[in-house]
């Protein structure tokens, strides 16, 4: 099943997850021991379900089980299991450095067998591109080849994401110059993660403000993310102003804008984490906070002034 060549949804790539009791049974240890390993070794690293229960990746647990059979300590087994899982990154870097598209697709396919799409992107795709960028330089032809492949992979994954199930929408102001910018891949990843969370996402270039009001009115975004650091702060501020003029006071966030020397002149902006997954969680939390009704102060106001106000309100 080739993810890149065949129209297969990333959801169809079956990534098996285990509950704590199942993972513990597979490793023949108690759930408490598994949680102790997570605290001490940081491995296996579970994801959290909607109900905040631990969900272990089968690949991680299986790699640890194999390593435990040959190891002399839990530490060395964890080290060996991590090494086994990191081979995907080495394979992807090698494939992209050797201009082998099929092998690069296969590396991501292998990564998806052991991880969720989010983790495959964050633990394999983005680190591989970062390593390649450091190795060959982001102004080189090999980087252009790799960046275009990664951009295409992320866009395909985004197209294959399930349709939006939430009523919320996010507007992404893309301040990256093109897909060869190192930040552009992180922006694509952020769009992908938000889309996979069931939120409508629309990315628009920050450089263009003509007709922006119509788009914003149609989308009716709940949050705005200004991503990238290529454009001058004045252009970004103008774009943000136009968005706010149409949509009202929206939560405005900055993603990967840290290289900018001048701060963006918009009020109430928040800077998101540099990792796309953490950033997408922060944006979703912002939207949820905004939807939540304000908490009313139930404590009775103190003092004669407050008592008079209360009596007037009751009358």
């Amino acid at each position: 099943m080739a993810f890149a060549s065949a129209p297969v949804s990333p959801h169809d790539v079956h990534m098996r997850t285990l509950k704590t009791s199942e993972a513990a049974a597979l490793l023949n240890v108690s759930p408490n021991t598994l949680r102790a390993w997570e605290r001490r070794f940081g491995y296996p690293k579970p994801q959290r379900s909607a109900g905040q229960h631990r969900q272990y990746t089968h690949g991680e647990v299986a790699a640890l089980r194999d390593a435990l059979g040959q190891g002399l300590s839990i530490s060395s087994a964890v080290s060996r299991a991590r090494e086994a899982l990191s081979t995907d990154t080495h394979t992807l870097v090698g494939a992209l450095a050797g201009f082998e598209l099929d092998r690069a697709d296969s590396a991501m396919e292998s990564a998806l067998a052991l991880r969720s799409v989010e983790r495959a992107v964050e633990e394999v795709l983005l680190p591989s591109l970062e390593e390649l960028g450091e190795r060959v330089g982001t102004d080189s032809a090999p980087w252009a080849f790799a960046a275009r492949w990664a951009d295409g992979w992320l866009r395909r994954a985004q197209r294959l994401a399930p349709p939006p199930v939430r009523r919320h929408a996010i507007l992404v102001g893309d301040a990256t110059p093109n897909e060869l910018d190192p930040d552009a891949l992180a922006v694509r990843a952020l769009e992908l993660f938000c889309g996979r969370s069931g939120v409508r996402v629309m990315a628009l270039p920050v450089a263009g403000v003509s007709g922006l009001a119509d788009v914003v009115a149609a989308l009716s975004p709940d949050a705005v993310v200004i991503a990238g650091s290529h454009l001058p702060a004045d252009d970004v501020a103008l774009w943000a102003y136009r968005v706010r003029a149409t949509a009202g006071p929206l939560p405005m966030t900055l993603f990967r804008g840290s290289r900018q020397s001048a701060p963006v002149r918009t009020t109430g902006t928040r800077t998101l984490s540099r990792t796309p997954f953490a950033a997408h969680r922060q944006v979703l939390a912002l939207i949820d906070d905004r939807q939540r009704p304000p908490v009313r102060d139930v404590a009775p106001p103190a003092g004669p002034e407050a008592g008079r106000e209360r009596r007037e309100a009751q009358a």
Partner: protein
Amino acid sequence: MRRLHSLRPVEVDERGLALVSFCGHCGIRPHQATAPRASRVCGHCGLGLVLQAGADLAPRHDDPFLIIDTSLSVCAVSAAAEALFGIDETDAVNKHIADFLVPADANAPSAENLLTLLVDVAGGGGEICTAVVRPRQEFGVRFWARIGPCGSPRAALLVLS
């Protein structure tokens, strides 16, 4: 009536010497009757694998010890050794043994003796022997060390006393 489950077979190595099991982290010897045989993980602390060594070499309770493989990399550090050297096992694993211990025997002709001995033992040869060692970068502190084979897989066990 005699309870037959109290009679347990004694495991021996290829030379016929009795082997005992111990946890590679806390050093506690698992109780044969209660320890689950299918799991190699210590049922007491959950942070070490159960290993075997000769009865005269295996660490007693609270003996600090390290386990080293044929490449002289540290594979396990006991909880007592962590406290003694002020290191974490997670940081020490895969590092060279010389980063933690060096020979301190004035009569030894060279520092290579300890390393050669460890390679021999971890590789499957060598008898249980003793050496004098000291922590790296520390002077005036010396330990007697019992060194011998343990497993599985095969490795060198260095017990400080």
